[in-house]
């Protein structure tokens, strides 16, 4: 019994972290068609913000509140200075964002002296029910992810901003003709995606410790999630993320972890073969 509960909790907790990381990437990829290879480093910057607050002696949660704003500012500056030049050429955008990511990662590395540092979670320890123990901080992350997911959904489907974003995606020429400044909308979308990455990084830091490579393990699987979910819809990215996160966490319970790691990709590729448009895609409809 206890291991069944542990299994479901751990799969849910890991999927939540994963969804949180993919959310920002998915927003940028599906709303703007840009594959942001610096996403892992945006996550890292979020984590670094929390680490900075922590090392200055401020409460960790203040850092977590500040992280999305700090990373949003970085995202906005990068979009205005560099990324907006890439919109016409997605391949160049990949290389460009990869280069930006590399520069950010190595800068943080030299700031950290190449070392790893821990940040204590605002909620320490675990809830115990008999033999079952449930990590407090992971529970908090699951709840925050749910709130953020709902918030994003409402923002993109129920607000004026969301309407403009979708309009700019579906038909940029018509959107411009209707008086929407697509360049501003793109800047705002990119900033928003960066903020989500910052939040993900901030919440992850107590679980993974801060190091320059914090975002790297998530990047490739995040792209897999976006591909799996299908471009064009933001719900698709979440579904993809949940699936990739859940299989990554669940498979090692049954088979060798090294095999499981490969199998995640095999399963994803098989799904893409049978549903090339993605799990929940609106792209071709």
């Amino acid at each position: 019994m206890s291991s069944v509960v542990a299994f479901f909790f751990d799969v849910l907790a890991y999927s939540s972290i994963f969804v949180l990381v993919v959310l920002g990437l998915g927003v940028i990829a599906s709303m703007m068609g840009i594959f942001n290879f610096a996403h892992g480093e945006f996550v890292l910057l979020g984590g670094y913000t929390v680490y900075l607050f922590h090392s200055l002696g401020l409460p960790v949660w203040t850092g977590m509140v500040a992280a999305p704003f700090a990373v949003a500012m970085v995202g906005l500056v990068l979009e205005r200075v560099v990324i907006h030049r890439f919109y016409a050429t997605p391949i160049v955008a990949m290389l460009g964002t990869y280069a930006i990511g590399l520069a950010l990662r190595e800068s943080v590395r030299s700031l950290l002296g190449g070392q790893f540092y821990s940040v204590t979670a605002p909620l320490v320890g675990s809830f115990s029910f008999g033999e079952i123990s449930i990590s407090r901080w992971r529970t908090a992350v699951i709840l925050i992810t749910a709130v953020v997911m709902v918030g994003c959904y409402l923002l993109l489907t129920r607000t004026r901003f969301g309407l403009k974003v979708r309009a700019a995606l579906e038909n940029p020429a018509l959107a411009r003709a209707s008086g929407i400044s697509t360049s501003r909308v793109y800047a705002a979308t990119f900033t928003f995606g960066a903020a989500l990455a910052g939040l993900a990084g901030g919440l992850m830091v107590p679980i993974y410790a801060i190091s320059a490579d914090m975002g790297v393990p998530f990047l490739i699987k995040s792209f897999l999630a976006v591909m799996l979910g299908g471009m064009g819809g933001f719900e698709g990215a979440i579904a993809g993320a949940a699936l990739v996160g859940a299989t990554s966490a669940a498979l090692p319970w049954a088979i060798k972890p090294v095999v499981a790691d490969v199998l995640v990709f095999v399963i994803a590729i098989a799904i893409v073969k049978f549903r090339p448009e993605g799990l929940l895609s609106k792209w071709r409809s």
Partner: protein
Amino acid sequence: MTIDDRNHRPPSASRRLFLQRASLLSGMIALGGGSYLYNPKGVWAADPIKVGIATDLTGPISWGGIPNSQVAKMAIEQINASGGLIGRPIQMILEDTATNEQLAVTKVRKLVTQDKVDVVFGGITSSMRNAIKDTIVNRGKTLYIYPQLYEGKECMPFLFCTGPTPAQQCDTFIPWLIKNGGKKFYLPSADYVWPHVLNEYARKTIVKNGGEVIGEEYFPVDHNEYSAAVNKIMSSGVNVVFNTTIPPGVAAFFKQLNEAGFQKRGGRLACVYYDENALGITPAHEIEGLASCLDYFRAVNDPFGNQMQAQYAKLYGEKALFTAGSGSTGMYRGIKLWEAAVKEAKSVKREPVAVALDHAKISEGPGGGCEMVPGTRHVKMNMYTAVSKGGKYEIVEKSKGAVMPGECG
């Protein structure tokens, strides 16, 4: 200016731009990235001895490369300050291998062919050592000294290893773990060469001392979700988790293990690369009681080590500490043993230095003196077992004299 004017810019502008960019690019190529030259201070009559240091100053392994390069610089400056070596100063050429084996081969080729260094120190990971050793030793005809703790079995001539081997890290440590943890071991590991080969030795030692291995499991090196392993550990009554998973994933693993209550029920966590730098990876309470076995800890509190720590801290601060797990003690030991060998050989030529290095000995070092075991190109050294308490190590056991490396014999 009309729009037409803008579209018909004079051609010289773009030519100028082309020339600017071309000169910038060629300048960057000519200078190369990540090469640093440290000339000896003062005026010397003799030509300098050239020492090449090839290590990972950037990339994922820079946690080890940065303190490695710093301790090398400190040791070489000390030698220069005390009158140099056989009357000559030492010039240090530092190459950043950037945690990239292909790049590293180019870098060490530069060291041995262009700079013509007399000895190369460096490499942290075994894959790095394997990538660069042939270029240094066989094609470059240069002496190579590898400083990091590793899985053993490196018996190439002219390649000397100055870090601890599996025998040194297991022979005293595993009996201690059985006595202070229990008989049931679990071996969660990262899937690369060091954990595989180390576990082979650890398993033998566990069984020989009356313990048993409940599970041995390999994870992708960048794995960061360990719930399945934690569950197996918790449900199978494991007493000792002998960990070789690596950062950054190890932070998540230790946290999950702690939150599941492994330590609370009396479990013992063990990890043989864990040094003072690694203590920062997780909050102290999550690794309370973690045991490690290395050739040096600050807590050894020997006068020589303390003095080195003070000097190192004055030069480089408290960010990348001088520790054993980063290969920094191995680097210091390597440089001092090589110094002793050059003094005996009265030459920096490879063959006579190798002959002298084969039995070189230093009476002082962090954690005590050490000596090469003749014919093995490995070092006999003191080993210490330490336990983490409140974020600091306490020494719980010291080896009876120097421990044999058990390699290439």
